[in-house]
């Protein structure tokens, strides 16, 4: 078994907000008809979370379920548990038109912490971060790469992007969070 490492292995930057690579995070893409009961049940079994509505992310005992598009969910679970979750969900959705893939190692996750975490992301993305509340998920872009983000709480934004652009994303966030770069000073 290879030793799984995250893209930037917990890189940290401290500016007026803290930018931290979140380390290993289990992520599963689930595609299918989101109105189906079987899929809602599989989501519940995998994460403990309810089926999220449009643009929402829900939290359960074992993880989160985020709405990515009308037929796609992002399940965020423990990294080590992800292969088993995929196996269980594939089994329970065998008769359902669906697709379940473990994408944990294809992605990178960053946490932006601080009162101005919304501003750091607003500098980089066209999304209206002021209207974002915990429980909402927005798929958009940061500078030149696609990314999705949600708020864990009012002071913590979590940003997900592809692993291949992890360094780029970290550099962007770190630059946006640099001391002296506060908005409205």
């Amino acid at each position, binding site marked *: 078994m290879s030793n799984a490492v995250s893209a930037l292995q917990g890189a940290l930057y401290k500016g007026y907000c803290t930018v931290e690579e979140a380390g290993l995070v289990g992520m599963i893409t689930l595609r299918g008809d989101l109105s189906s009961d079987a899929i809602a049940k599989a989501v519940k079994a995998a994460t403990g979370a309810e089926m999220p509505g449009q*643009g929402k992310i829900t939290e359960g005992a074992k993880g989160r379920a985020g709405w*990515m*598009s*009308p037929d796609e969910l992002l399940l965020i679970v423990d990294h080590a548990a992800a292969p088993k979750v995929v196996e269980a969900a594939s089994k329970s959705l065998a008769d359902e038109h669906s697709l379940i893939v473990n994408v944990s190692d294809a992605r990178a996750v960053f946490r932006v912490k601080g009162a101005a975490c919304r501003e750091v992301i607003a500098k980089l993305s*066209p999304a209206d971060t002021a209207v974002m509340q915990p429980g909402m998920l927005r*798929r*958009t*872009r940061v500078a030149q790469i*696609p*990314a999705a983000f949600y708020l864990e709480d009012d002071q913590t934004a979590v940003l997900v992007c592809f692993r291949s652009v992890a360094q780029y994303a970290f550099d962007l966030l770190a630059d946006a969070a640099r001391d002296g770069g506060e908005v409205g000073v």
Partner: protein
Amino acid sequence: MLILECPYCGVMADETDLHGGGEAHLKRFGPGSSDDDFETYLFHRANPKGVHFERWRHVSGCGKWFHAARNTMTLEVYGTYSAQTYEPPKAIINAVKKKHPEWEGYE
């Protein structure tokens, strides 16, 4: 800056979140059609000064294609709607007609 509401995500996505797909509601003429029809389908595009129906893709969001009715002169947006339709829905047509009673209508 052009801002369109993605009918799938429900978010106001700006132009940089989107990718333009050209004229909407084209009818395909494939194998077996006349050369004239095929040429029209491939190359002839409306380029109106005014009301225009276009395809857009929410490329860095949900990745879905949708349709938008907008004005190429004023950049006013009359509405966006699902791509799973052959012609603009009534509500969109009415929204355009309300603003431009003289508009000759869709095709």
